[in-house]
């Protein structure tokens, strides 16, 4: 074990790493917001929505949950241009992440909805609330409060999964590590730094989500 560490060689590329952090942050902010929105819509469609919507939504959820994220990403980036839909690598990555998180989070949110007692729906209806009001106030909010920890975990998983977006030339943190490695062959140091960056980002994201949960749902979100 005579390996000599040279982290200086990695920090020569600090601008690349900083850009990587910005890009990964953009990916997760957009991916999480759009993904959870898609998830809520799909959970609604599968539990309360019109019957005609259920089959296509179920097909989407199962398709995404049973295929690799990398393949979904390649399909969007390399495949769709053949149909005339050309997305930039950032757009393709955001779309893939939103679709992916949408499918997984819809199942998590659905579980929260299913766990809500029927009596609550009926109580809402008996107060002359519209179906949409019942869904929003009586069903969704307690459901989200119940599954918030699981949803937070899924968001962090998707954030870490965004590392594969470097495959379509998105210049995120993992791209930065691979780029540094290809320039000075300091693979070990480059990936150690990338690992620490991802670890820090995941911990910060988790903490942020916990604070949001407390803010929205009070003590019931643990």
């Amino acid at each position, binding site marked *: 074990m005579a390996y000599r560490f040279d982290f200086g060689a990695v920090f020569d590329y600090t601008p690349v790493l900083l850009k990587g952090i910005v890009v990964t942050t953009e990916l997760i902010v957009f991916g999480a917001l759009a993904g959870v929105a898609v998830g809520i819509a799909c959970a609604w469609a599968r539990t309360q929505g019109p019957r005609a919507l259920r089959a296509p939504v179920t097909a989407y959820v199962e398709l995404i949950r049973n295929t690799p994220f990398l393949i979904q990403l390649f399909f969007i*980036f*390399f*495949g769709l*241009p*053949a149909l005339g839909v*050309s997305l930039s*690598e950032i757009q393709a990555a955001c779309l893939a992440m939103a679709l992916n998180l949408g499918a997984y989070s819809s199942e998590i949110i659905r579980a929260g909805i299913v766990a809500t007692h029927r009596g609550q729906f009926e109580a809402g209806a008996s107060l002359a609330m519209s179906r949409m009001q019942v869904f929003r106030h009586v069903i969704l909010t307690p459901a989200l409060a119940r599954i918030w920890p699981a949803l937070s975990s899924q968001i962090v998983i998707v954030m870490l999964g965004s590392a594969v977006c*470097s*495959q*379509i*030339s998105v210049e995120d943190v993992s*791209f930065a590590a*691979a*780029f540094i*490695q*290809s*320039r000075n062959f300091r693979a070990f140091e480059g990936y150690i730094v990338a690992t620490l960056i991802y670890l820090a980002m995941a911990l910060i994201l988790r903490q942020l989500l916990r604070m949001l949960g407390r803010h929205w749902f009070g003590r019931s979100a643990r």
Partner: protein
Amino acid sequence: MKRRNLLKFAVLFAAVAISPAHADALADLNKAGVIKIAVPQDFPPFGSAGPDLKPVGYDIDVAKLIATKLGVKLELVPVGSANRVPFLQTNKVDLVISSMGKNAEREKVIDFSDAYAPFFNGVFGPANVMVTKVEQLAGKTVGVTRGSVEDIELSKIAPADASIKRYEDNNGTISAFLSGQTQLIATGNVIAAAIFARNPPKKPETKFLIKNSPCFIGLNKNEPALLAKVNDILAAAKKDGSLSAISQKWLGAALPADL
């Protein structure tokens, strides 16, 4: 005892070292009526096994051309890239036509003819993207395989507002180019030829070179007659277009004018 052994070795070594420099390889092979040429066996499109397991490729066609012009029979000797030069030094072959580039170490031990095949890294793209030099990459997207020679060199010379997209491997780079995610592709001319051969809607034409290291025919040192003859044949083949036809056949592009 030890010293005598050493002396023997020295004499033996001197004899071996001198032997390649024999009288005149051109006269010898004319007398034998056959020329032995080392060609690649695993480096398409320059040389690989054809459907009937006989070698085919750019280098094989050049070997045939040389043998025909010399008026002798051709004996192809398939070689790998590591043993090309030893085959020549030990007189197992008369010429090496094996997509060999020139470098200082090789020039110490063998001679080189004029260039006979283009081998370069460059930027390629469809006809409607107007680029002839690196400055014009401004505002364009170029795909490249991360960490490749093209990536390193292009990153040094490309203007700041050129958008270089780096992919994991050649497949990613090629897919990005063919699907229109990048306007141009920076790669080797052999890979560009392979894309071209598949006849895609976007044909990669050469825009400009990044690094040029053409192929030369290798022969033993101190063979001025053979060297002159080979160079004459190459010069004539460049003039009458027969070398360009070989280039068109295997690399999908005519011979560059400055080769």
